[in-house]
């Protein structure tokens, strides 16, 4: 039925099967859309946010998708600026994942601001002293970069590419992509950093506050570094999931090994910096503000030392070591464990830097304030996941996302599924 739109030589499942799959995920999507409209029409009383939790599940989800979406800017930087040509085999998919992550982040923000019709105020009446204003500017501009990077892939659709103007436009955009990638790297550096900077400058929150360089706290640099380190892990993870579902090899081992190796070294260097930062904060910064380390990890039912050890050792040191050693990196099971742990690690870091900050008591009369999100918050957080699955399914079906697909699947597998 839609065979004219499917890339030449590519095998895809039947259209009814594809439609049923999309319909199932769309049901989840609609659940999220319903919750989204509840938040817009009835207001933020639909959430469990309160005076303690001005930032809650949405902001964690926002920071998490931006961090894992960092694979797009970092892979683009490596491919177009540092000329690591091997990454041409995965760059399209990295851009699509980044596009999904950043559009999701903007959607979540549109729900979180409560009055989306006033969303443009942050641009028009900008508070130039706010790191969050910088985040909003860079986030929107970087989303424009991702859209520009995504357009050539759309124009390479079998039918669209027959239109001469589209064909030439895609060709010309490829020609100047390095300029867009450089702009994207510039914007990403600042918005990833400023998201960390927001936590680091909160002088009223001893759990978060850090010293730094000039106006930038160390969390500024750690956030950018962690996004560049763990973003490729998420790209590799989604690639692996797509390969498993489609039953096809989509990216060559050589490309996967290279990106895993780069990610491994980035994770290892990041985690060393993170450990130094944590030790300095625990032994110098926090005590200078009148707090001991145990204050942040005891006397509550959820946040214990386990979260610190899980984030730094289990989801930082372990994946870093697995990915930098050739023997473990090239073992499919260990590599999969490492990229899963890495993805969990960066999400956990964002959780700690958004939600544990809010939970820790600051005043002497305070107690730990734990928070459980409402179903509306959960539904709107699941919404981007359903949207992402649908967009990946559509792009995989109709666009030449993986340049090596034909070559790697010359012998058709016995069972084909999508």
């Amino acid at each position: 039925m839609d065979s004219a739109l499917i890339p030449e030589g590519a095998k895809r499942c039947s259209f009814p099967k594809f439609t049923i799959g999309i319909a199932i995920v769309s049901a989840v999507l609609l659940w999220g859309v319903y919750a989204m409209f509840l938040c817009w029409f009835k207001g933020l009383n639909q959430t469990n946010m309160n005076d303690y939790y001005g930032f809650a599940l949405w902001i964690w989800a926002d920071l998490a998708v931006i961090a894992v979406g960092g694979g797009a800017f970092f892979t683009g930087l490596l491919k177009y600026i540092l000329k690591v040509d091997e990454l041409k085999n995965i760059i399209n998919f990295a851009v699509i994942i980044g596009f999904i992550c950043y559009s999701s982040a903007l959607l979540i923000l549109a729900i979180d601001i409560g009055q989306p019709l006033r969303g443009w105020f942050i641009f028009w009446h900008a508070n130039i002293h706010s790191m969050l204003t910088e985040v909003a500017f860079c986030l929107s501009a970087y989303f424009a970069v991702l859209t520009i990077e995504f357009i050539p892939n759309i124009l390479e659709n079998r039918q669209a590419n027959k239109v001469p103007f589209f064909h030439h436009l895609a060709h010309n955009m490829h020609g100047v992509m390095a300029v867009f990638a450089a702009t994207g790297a510039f914007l990403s550096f600042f918005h990833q950093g400023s998201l960390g900077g927001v936590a680091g400058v909160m002088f009223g929150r001893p759990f978060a506050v850090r010293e730094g360089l000039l106006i930038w706290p160390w969390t500024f640099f750690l956030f950018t570094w962690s996004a560049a380190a763990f973003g490729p892990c998420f790209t590799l993870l989604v690639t692996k999931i797509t390969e498993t579902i489609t039953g096809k090899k989509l990216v060559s081992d050589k490309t996967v090994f290279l990106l895993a190796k780069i990610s491994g070294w980035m994770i290892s260097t990041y985690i060393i910096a993170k450990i130094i930062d944590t030790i300095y904060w625990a032994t110098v910064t926090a005590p200078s503000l009148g707090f001991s380390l145990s204050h942040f990890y005891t006397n509550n039912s959820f946040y214990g030392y386990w979260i610190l050890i899980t984030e730094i050792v289990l989801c930082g040191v372990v994946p870093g070591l697995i990915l930098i050693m050739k023997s473990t990196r090239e073992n499919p099971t260990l590599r999969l464990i490492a990229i899963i742990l890495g993805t969990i690690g960066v999400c956990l870091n964002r959780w700690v830097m958004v939600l544990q900050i809010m939970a820790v008591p600051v005043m002497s009369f305070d107690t730990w304030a734990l928070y459980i999100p409402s179903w509306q918050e959960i539904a709107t957080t699941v919404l981007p996941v359903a949207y992402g699955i649908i967009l990946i399914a559509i792009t995989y079906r109709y666009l030449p996302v993986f340049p090596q697909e034909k070559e790697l699947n010359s012998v058709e597998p016995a069972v084909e599924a999508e």
Partner: protein
Amino acid sequence: MFPFSFEWVWDMGHMIFFGGFWYAISILGAGMTFCILKAAYDTMNESGESH
């Protein structure tokens, strides 16, 4: 956002913040304008190379 907005001040903060923003937006705008115009030119002359 613009120098003609009432809250605009010609200070270092505004110049750095908005300078960076408009610089990035200008690069994107100029890049896309170039690609679209060149694509239109190539289409009319059919001189573009395949990639």
